[in-house]
């Protein structure tokens, strides 16, 4: 009835960098899809699977992540036995005695030991889909594998970095390659693994004993020589974010009805921090076409093929085409924008013109006044 699992979300990824977007925040905290941040999708998938103990671990830049998840109440994780556990490196007091050197693995170990669940689902923060883990866990249980990892086969390009899996006939991993020059298989890891909590505790304890300081899904998969690591295919639609171009392309996919309906039209809600914005007001002379618009906007200009986050103002005679405009941005009169990503709180002054290319969108960092 309930999945007997706890969740762990790795909020950073050492190999993924989204430039100006990831400078002020962890990968998982990057705004996405109008009302959301990337982590919302994985958190919601876990909560919708009935998982109520979730750890989130980041390497640095916690503030924006902490502000976003708060007490966890938006995901109904503000429980007596904490539902949402932010696991920063500092959390382990033992480190202090050892001279204050941060060592997140001990913090992880404490977290895994704190709850009685059978499984742990560990997930990276760079894929977006909407599904429960029921099937994933039951297939893992049936197979008898030690570790199962989720992959998909996209017709589109995966972008880089991507981890291509080579499975044997029974689905077990026999090889894996990062961005291989000639992909021998089309299976690409989604960065999600499930394994026994007890096994995970053993693996992490060993890492600590060995003096390792790193923990990653790729690291777990690499154990395929000692353990039975098996791939399980996810067949639904997935967005994969590993660079600014894939971020931009993934956003634009949300303008597609079929894609949007699969991501949001199911019974599984995607939760996010509630902002209590006003409804969006459309003024007299506006033209809005093929765009996703969030609450709290005020639109009197032209918006085409774009994604607007909460609280954006588009003034009269402004033209916005194929843009991603984040929270509380103010676009003044007569501005012209095409293939531009504006981070939170930017102000674009009257008459400014910015034009990027689809593969090379212009990115304006948080709070810039242009």
């Amino acid at each position, binding site marked *: 009835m309930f999945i007997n699992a706890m969740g762990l979300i790795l909020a950073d990824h050492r190999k993924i960098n989204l430039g100006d977007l990831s400078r002020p925040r962890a990968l998982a905290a990057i705004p996405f899809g109008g009302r959301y941040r990337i982590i919302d999708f994985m958190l919601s998938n876990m909560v919708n699977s009935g998982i109520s103990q979730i750890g989130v671990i980041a390497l640095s830049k916690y503030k924006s992540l902490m502000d976003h998840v708060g007490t966890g109440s938006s995901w109904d994780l503000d429980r007596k036995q904490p539902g949402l556990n932010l696991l920063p490196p500092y959390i382990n007091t033992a480190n202090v005695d050892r001279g204050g050197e941060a060592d997140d693995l001990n913090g992880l170990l404490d977290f895994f030991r704190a709850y009685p669940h059978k499984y742990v689902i560990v997930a990276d923060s760079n894929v977006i889909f909407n599904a429960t883990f029921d099937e994933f866990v039951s297939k893992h249980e049936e197979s008898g594998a030690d570790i199962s990892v989720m992959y998909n086969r996209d017709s589109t390009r995966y972008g880089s970095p991507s981890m291509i899996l080579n499975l044997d006939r029974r689905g077990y991993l026999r090889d894996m390659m990062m961005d291989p020059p000639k992909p021998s298989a089309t299976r690409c890891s989604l960065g999600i693994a499930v394994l026994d909590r007890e096994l995970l505790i053993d693996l992490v304890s060993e890492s600590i004993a060995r003096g390792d300081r790193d923990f990653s899904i790729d690291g777990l998969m690499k154990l395929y020589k000692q353990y039975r690591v098996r791939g399980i295919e996810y067949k639904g639609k997935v967005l994969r974010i590993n660079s600014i171009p894939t971020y931009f392309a993934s956003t634009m996919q949300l303008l597609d009805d079929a894609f949007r309906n699969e991501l949001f039209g199911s019974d599984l809600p995607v939760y996010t921090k509630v902002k209590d914005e006003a409804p969006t007001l*459309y003024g007299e002379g506006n033209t809005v076409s093929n765009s996703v618009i969030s609450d709290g906007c005020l639109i009197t200009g032209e918006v085409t093929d774009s994604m607007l986050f909460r609280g954006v103002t588009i003034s009269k005679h402004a033209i916005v085409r194929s843009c991603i405009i984040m929270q509380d941005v103010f676009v003044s009169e007569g501005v012209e924008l095409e293939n531009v990503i504006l981070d939170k709180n930017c102000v674009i002054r009257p008459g400014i013109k910015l034009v990027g290319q689809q593969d090379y969108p212009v990115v304006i960092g948080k709070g810039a006044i242009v």
Partner: protein
Amino acid sequence: MARNEIIAMILAGGQGSRLGVLTKHLAKPAVPFGSRYRIIDFPLSNCINSGIETVGVLTQYQPLALNTYIGNGHPWDLDRNKGGAFILPPYQSSERSDWYTGTANAIFQNIEFIENCDPKHVLILSGDHIYKMNYAKMLRTHIREAADATIAVFEVPWEEASRFGLMNTDENDLVIDFEEKPAKPKSNLASMGVYIFTWDVLRRYLVEDERNLKSNHDFGKNIIPRMLQDQAKLTAYRFCGYWKDVGTISSLWESNMDILDRPEELNFRDRDWRIYSKNPVKPAHYIAKNASVINSALTDGCSIYGTVEHSVLSNSVTVEKGAIVKDSILMPGVTVQEGALLDKCIVGFETIIGRNVKAGASVKGKSRFTSPYCQDQITVFERGLKVRDKVEIPGNCMVEIGDDGESNELIEYTFRVR
């Protein structure tokens, strides 16, 4: 301690029968308003923004929607351990079992609740007004004047004054007389139905009023006049800003349109006085390629493929290709199918307007649904209907499922529960 300085009691029990089918299944304060909100969001948000963290909500009529809407109070930050939002229905005790018989009686029946909170002052609110008001300022006046009661008043145009309960005041804003809808107004200060009472005083009057068998147990009709008679100190507190009673179909429609036509007055974008509401947990809305959305308010979960003009849409509304929605209010989950036209319509939760339906002000003629509650060519649809394709319904109609089955040619009922 600051906490017990004042508590609020919201009178949310009335049926609001003048809203017809809109309140057939839910209490008036739970009626959606202004795209993102419900009516009760306004007093609740005013309370929390004024620092009042204990709020009793007196319900009686169809409280379920209100009860589940308010839930644990979290959306308004009223999920407090000490204080918070309390639904207060009528109940049976060892001595009596009565429904609430009037506004004053409703408070009387909850004296024990108030005593448990032990406040110095009690704020009495209605659950059917749209306004933003800082009750803390009003409380300061009440305390400064050492009043027994402070009544918020609103200056109305003289020509409309006779529609209101009016306070005649002296030069110090002390109330000297109260008239309910007088033919010849002596004042244009209308009572807003917002009272602060010193609790010790109010309790005395409630107990006395309860013993009076001739009383209607109503604040306006009984308690206030009785206090005036006793020369208690009643102060008028002047409120400036947007304020509207949304007790009729016409005023509900007007007030919704005001957020489009006079957006600066209620100003939902003001982050210093947010109006909180329960989040529907829906994605951002989508405007399709050939859609047109002019002069309208939309919120999460809407998908617009047709034309929306001068309308207020709640969450999860779909307007299909070729459909036109004009001067209308669509509540959560409404679908307007291809080619339909809505003109000055208010459509209840989850109702489906079939293909090529024409309804509202631009359709002329009479109908079996014509209703005295609907004026100004406004047409209202009950929640959970499917209006069959191509049906035409004129203005001034209240469209609801009947017991006769005759209406079956025009509409059907889609809700699982009736």
